[in-house]
């Protein structure tokens, strides 16, 4: 039977102590990851529009021909009206 004061048992106890330290570190790291919510799946996001600069509407050329002046503004308005449909509008 291994004497617990012997070299071999001391080595076994040292190994276990190292195991406990590793376990404690991993437990601490797990708690941090857990409480910080680092493993939570991201909430789904609605697709947004393209980010960044919104393209500006191109300016219209300022050299458009200006309408000719002197157009008669008293165009005839007495156009004939359409005949009414019997039975009302469809």
């Amino acid at each position, binding site marked *: *039977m291994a004497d*617990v004061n012997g070299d*071999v048992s001391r080595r*076994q106890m040292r190994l276990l*102590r190292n*195991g406990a330290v590793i*376990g404690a570190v*991993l*437990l601490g790291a797990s708690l941090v990851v857990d409480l910080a919510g680092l*493993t939570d799946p991201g909430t789904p996001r609605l697709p947004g529009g393209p980010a960044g600069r919104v393209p500006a509407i191109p300016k219209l050329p300022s050299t458009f021909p200006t309408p000719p002046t002197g157009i008669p503004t008293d165009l005839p308005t007495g156009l004939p009206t359409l005949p009414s449909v019997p039975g009302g509008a469809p």
Partner: protein
Amino acid sequence: MTAGGRALLIARLLIGLYLVELLLNLFRPRVLRHEPSLTIFTRLPGASGSLSRLLSLSPAVFWTVLAGIVVGVALQVLAVRWNPDGRRATVLLRVTLVALLGPFALIPLGVIATYPATALVSVPSTALVLLLLHNGQRFARLPLSMLLAAFGWGALIVFGLSRAYSGLALGTINGYLGKVSSTDASALLKAQYRVMNLLVLHLAVVTELTMAAGVLLMLVLFRRCVTDVVTGLVLGAAIGLGLNFSESVLFIRLYGSLSAFNGATGGFEYWIRQSIGLLGGQVAIGAVLGAALGLAAQVRQRRQRTLIAGAGLLAAIGGATAMEILSAWFSHLAESHIDVGGTLDTLVISPFLWLLVQSPFIALYVLLLRAGCRVRAAAARTSVPAEAAAGHAITDREVPFLVDPALRLWAVVSTWRRYGRGAALALNRVQAAQLDLAGWRWRRQCAGSPGVPVAEEKEGEELRAKVIRLKSRAGAGPVVTR
């Protein structure tokens, strides 16, 4: 305290923890208006059939557990009044233990019975590792019945108890953390994540506690074995293997059902749990925990014993928690850089990330096993010649073969080549019986040391008779050691 008293104390502590969980769940804050008194009675909305059975505890099982506790308490009262001795006391102790803890086994048995095919495909690989554990012990091997009992404890009791505890804890934690405004979907989701994360932590703690209880119970109930690091390590690994078996059935089915949501398939779960998981995961954690308890049993001072057992428990809880949380975090970080579910991910990246966290524990149990085997080799060098000098079951010419595993293997292989398989197997059986006898001699030499059960003369005579019987059965056929 007697062995029976210790065994009952372990069972009472486990049941006490269950009753605490039950009371906490009963007096939890209510999240909804018409909740049942215990959350385990809540039916999952929309879930039915196999998925519902996987995720919730059957009320019939719950009432059976309660009935078992009542019967167990009644039997203990009866034992105090009746005060039986001898065989009756042993029978009463076993019946009491079965009544108290047996009903929890209905939980994994229900899962296995629902999916027998999934359980069957996990049998060959699990049996192979169990065989490795049985044959991998160099000297003073554990009885096969003890190894099988440890496996059964892991598969049935650890799985059942930890699920029963956590089923109640889920409702309790949800009662405290899940009460948020139902209109704030983001807060609701976040609260659910907190609940699940705490549940994972809770599951790791109670699983390791029930595994430790199993190792202690085996050491208390099976008196014919040496208690050392190797014994504890093998027992812990067997319990972890049993737990891994039941978990495999559950997770293969569960992930098979939910693969559309989480990406992992039943096939992937089978691959990871029945290949690399057989020597890592719960097996590795159980081995480290068992080794610590085996070493603690050898120490005389109570304070030092508690420290060693506590160190093993801390290592096991830390490892089990990290295996779930840190591995998931690593996968979470890696998923944007890899083709999730692709061949490289399935065969290399995911197993690597899973093994990364547990690799220190795998290295630890290999080193502990190596150190323990060295102690056993030294013991074999003294006890085998001592037995050869005291009796006729081991001859002087057989001593060098029995103390050197390499020479023993060479003898078996040479016998196989020269005289065939039957002669080699007969030699192997004789040598195994002789080593069991030398193990008994070792216990006798260490009489009075902590963790060493009494080696009775009657047991030695039985072992010697077994060796002589095996030798005579092997006949006068020549073997290399003669």
